[in-house]
């Protein structure tokens, strides 16, 4: 279990008014943008439950957009993001939904353009977030670690190949999450690392997607 630090308590430095509904929303936007890899042409935000009901009063919509645009959790431009020139560079919209199977503060961030991608995440309290799905794959991404995400064709030996590349660089693995749609079909891997990877992951057949997400500074 994680040891609680004073910097979990007297933090984050953020724009208000809510750590879960504002800072968490910004972080979810930031992580989604990192996974996507570049500024999207179009993005749809689907807000669920409490995010849908009280999000506007907490600036959740502004926070999500600001995150996708790359603004930090303490950026005072977020308050007026809708009229900021940055927001004019992309096509964005919001949908408000109810689904009590989802977390109270859940969001789907749906990117459109040449690359289509759907990222689902929750704001779990105190500004902490958890990205749980990329398209249909289960992942576990909190932004607390440098994290490597791979999507590939399920085949024997992938975990061993990837972990040996990581081991060659002397990097410690903090946690590992794997998922697959079916044997021999699409699979995903999400690896949290204690330090960033310097060497690219290579030599894996049918690797469709590989991205390293940087640890978010609190």
């Amino acid at each position, binding site marked *: 279990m994680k040891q*609680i630090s004073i910097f979990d308590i007297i933090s984050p430095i953020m724009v208000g*008014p809510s750590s879960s509904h504002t*800072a968490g929303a910004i972080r979810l936007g930031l992580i989604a943008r990192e996974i996507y890899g570049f500024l999207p042409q179009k993005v749809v935000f689907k807000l669920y439950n409490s995010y849908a009901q009280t999000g506007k009063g907490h600036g959740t919509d502004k926070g999500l957009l600001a995150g996708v645009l790359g603004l930090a959790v303490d950026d005072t431009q977020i308050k007026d993001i809708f009229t900021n020139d940055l927001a004019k560079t992309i096509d964005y919209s919001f949908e408000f939904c109810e689904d009590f199977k989802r977390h109270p503060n859940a969001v789907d961030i749906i990117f459109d353009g040449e690359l289509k991608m759907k990222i689902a995440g929750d704001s779990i309290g105190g500004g902490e977030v958890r990205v749980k799905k990329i398209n249909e794959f289960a992942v576990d991404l909190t932004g607390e670690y440098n994290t490597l995400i791979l999507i590939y064709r399920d085949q024997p030996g992938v975990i061993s190949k990837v972990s040996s590349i990581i081991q060659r660089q002397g990097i410690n693995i903090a946690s590992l999450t794997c998922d697959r749609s079916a044997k021999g079909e699409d699979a995903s891997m999400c690896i949290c690392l204690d330090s960033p990877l310097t060497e690219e992951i290579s030599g894996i057949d049918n690797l469709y997607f590989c991205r390293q997400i940087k640890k978010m500074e609190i």
Partner: protein
Amino acid sequence: MKINTFEELLTKCSIDKKKIHVIIEEKESAQHEISREDVRLKTKKILDAMKQAISSGLGSAELSLSRQSGDDCQKLQQRFTVRPSLFGSLFEKITTYALATSEENIRMGRIVACPTAGSCGIVPSVLVASSEFLGVDEQRQIDALITAGAIGSIVANKTALAGAVGGCQAECGVASAMAAGGLVVLLGGSNEQVVQSVSLALKNILGLTCDPVAGLVEIPCVKRNSFLAVHAVTAAELAISCVESKIPADEVVDALVQTGQLMSPLLKETSQGGLAKTKRGIEIEKGIFG
């Protein structure tokens, strides 16, 4: 190094003959693999952000997104210029700084969640106002803020500091205990007195509900920050006078956790009961969200 309870903290301090903040700096330094100096620098950065939020908040009367709050700090400041507070200038500073920070929060200004955004005004107002009033140097302010953080993290070992889990006890209540302990440090109190102030502050907020109108961090959260900042001063004043809580701090925290569990979900950040479901509370909600 693991410090999960106040008792463990005090034992460690007494074996090593060190102040709480020193023990915590050593712990944080090991945990984050950074130097003790860097732990203090990180804390200074947070302290500076707190001061900046107070200063921005004192100068603004802009209303929140919901237009329910944002101009009370101006009212308080104006009144104090005409007729000073019965409790003197430190009371004026603390109450205005707490409102300034909380109002800055609800207008989407930059604040430090401490431990949460809804309770962001309590620790900064007590520590910054008292430091100005007493002429305390920056190094000791950092000692106090680290101590406050230690208090919050020990409580957080037993319960999430979230209204949805423990009601407002776990947010503004814990913030007031953190502020009380920090103030004891500013006043030159002992490690034991810091922990006594925690017991005294927490015992007197047990059962505090989280029932915000329209689900927003505004009513009653903004004004509550001023109230619980003053509450923290009471706890620190008693502790520094060697008044002792008959119930030890760790057991008070246990009582807080149990009270949080017994509290109806209607009163834990769901806005389904209490102030949120008063006649006027419902009218305000309709006015905001239609």
